[in-house]
């Protein structure tokens, strides 16, 4: 994200020699010019400070304690974090989160790239219809998506098992195993977010100067070649933006797996699809006496988001050169 540093041109203060209509009015004007901007931005900073920033910092503080939400807390330094490193359930949740993230982000971004490229055709008819149709899943709540897909993946009479039966696949117990539950959960994420990412990528494509393509066409470059040599490299900043957004969302995945497992916070009877955010919830809110440990999980998630975003950022910058 780049911030264009445009600020308003200085508004000249009322010249001193101008006869003040009334002294009080003049004073009010001075105060108004000087201080009212702070008044206008104050609501944001007050409320965000109290309910956004402060809890984040307090999470860090809590994570250094053995903290019971409705009882005592004692300072224990980094013990929660050292415990985290040897916690099998934490690694399990990390593994699941990354698995579902890979299964949702990679196909989703490829699909979005493909669709955005189609929607970017100059002579396409019904543009608005296609854009709206592709985006409409994003309007549905995650809870509704999870409920509908839960039914589609139902074992005895779900649509997917019915379709699979035509190619001779036995009824799949979708929430029973790791790979199948990951697939089901990832498909919910894919359905809800492909259209959104398509629009963002499309916006990036439309910002590419048209004369680049005209020049390439004159030189006889095929459409395919234009896509590889012009579209993809020019799309890099938008792509990084989309990948980072997907990372932030993917690392915090919560509602889909929770509802897929009928509200079971451990994510299936064997924890086969418990994500990091679910583990945080289990430790910090479902069990109030381990709130300090839950806070450590929260900070671990935060660090993972930063690391994965940085990793992707460097990777994309390198490969798309």
């Amino acid at each position, binding site marked *: 994200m780049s911030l264009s540093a445009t600020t308003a041109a200085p508004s000249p203060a009322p010249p001193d020699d101008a006869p003040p209509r009334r002294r009080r009015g003049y004073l009010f*004007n001075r105060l108004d010019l000087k201080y009212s901007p702070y008044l206008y931005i104050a609501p944001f900073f007050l409320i965000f400070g109290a309910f956004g920033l402060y809890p984040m910092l307090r999470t860090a503080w809590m994570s250094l304690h053995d903290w019971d939400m409705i009882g005592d807390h004692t300072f224990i330094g980094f013990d929660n974090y050292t415990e985290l490193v040897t916690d099998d359930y934490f690694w399990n949740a990390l593994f699941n989160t990354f698995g579902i993230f890979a299964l949702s982000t990679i196909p989703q971004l490829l699909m979005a790239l493909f669709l955005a490229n189609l929607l970017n055709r100059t002579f396409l008819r019904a543009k608005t219809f296609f854009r709206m149709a592709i985006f409409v899943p994003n309007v549905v709540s995650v809870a509704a998506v999870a409920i509908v897909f839960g039914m589609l993946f139902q074992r005895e009479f779900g649509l997917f098992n019915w379709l699979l039966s035509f190619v001779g696949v036995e009824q799949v117990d979708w929430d029973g195993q790791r790979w199948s539950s990951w697939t089901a959960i990832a498909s919910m994420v894919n359905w809800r977010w492909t259209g959104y990412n398509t629009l963002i990528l499309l916006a990036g494509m439309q910002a590419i100067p048209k004369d680049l393509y005209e020049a390439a066409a004159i030189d006889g470059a095929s459409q395919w070649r234009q896509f590889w040599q012009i579209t993809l490299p020019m799309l890099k900043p938008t792509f990084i933006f989309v990948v980072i957004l997907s990372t932030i969302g993917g690392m915090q995945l919560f509602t889909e797996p929770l509802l897929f497992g009928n509200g079971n916070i451990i994510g299936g009877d064997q924890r086969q699809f418990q994500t990091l955010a679910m583990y945080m919830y289990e430790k910090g809110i479902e069990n109030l006496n381990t709130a300090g440990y839950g806070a450590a999980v929260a900070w671990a998630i935060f660090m993972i988001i930063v690391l994965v975003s940085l990793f992707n950022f460097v990777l994309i910058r390198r490969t798309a050169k």
Partner: protein
Amino acid sequence: MISASQRLWRTSPLTYVALVLAALLSIYPFYYMVVIGTRSLDSINDVPPPITPGGAFGDNFGRVLENDAANFLKGLMNSIIVSTVVTVSVVITGSLAGFAFAKLRFRGSNVLLLGIIVTMMIPTQMGIIPLWGMMQELQWYDTLYAVTVPFLVSAFGVFMMRQYASQAISDELIEAGRVDGASTFRIYWNIVLPALRPAAGVLGLLTFMETWNSFLWPYAILSPENPTLQVSLSFLSYAYYTDYSQVFAATAVGTIPLVLVFLIFGRQIIGGIMEGAVKS
């Protein structure tokens, strides 16, 4: 001259096939929601699965309303209240602060704006454990304050309004207001706010949808007796997952208002999202 049909097919037919397929995949789950929600329960076990809507919606939704465990109407009311209050507040605070950042000069404005942009990238969901404790201390547990107050402002809202205000409102316009002796707030109210209307509309729609659909925090802080719509749906689906037609009727009722809003304002919403992507 090229005829219209030639122009149409300059885009290859395969493009249309792929796009129509994508559109069908996007729309199918809605349709499926309506099909199951309007069918009686016994027809769900049919093989092949039912593919056309039935006439049992009234019956199914009746069961939702009688269901004491779900508190569906209460959830619907709560969601309407919370989403409306949050939307109005985000638009007002966002346009005030956006106007200040775009058009007023004050010490520290660049640093503060940078701060807002950084907070847009922070996953604030990571703060819910202490936030939960704070709500206990404020005695806001299981009240609508808990799901409203923390969301009355939005960094994205401020940023979006700031971007729009800096290009849509000329400095001359504001100068003219000042020469006429208008206070800063009058300028905001009479000049800036009307000019910001298109962007404010998009921000309002996006905020409404986000609030209407939010899940994790309401789920953590509200009880099943006083839920938002999404929380109500989740409890309904846990407890009655065998009664699909009831759950789907409720889900459809909770989803359709947003879809209608989207059908009416979709063009603006999409425009807003795409513009935001390029600028940020």
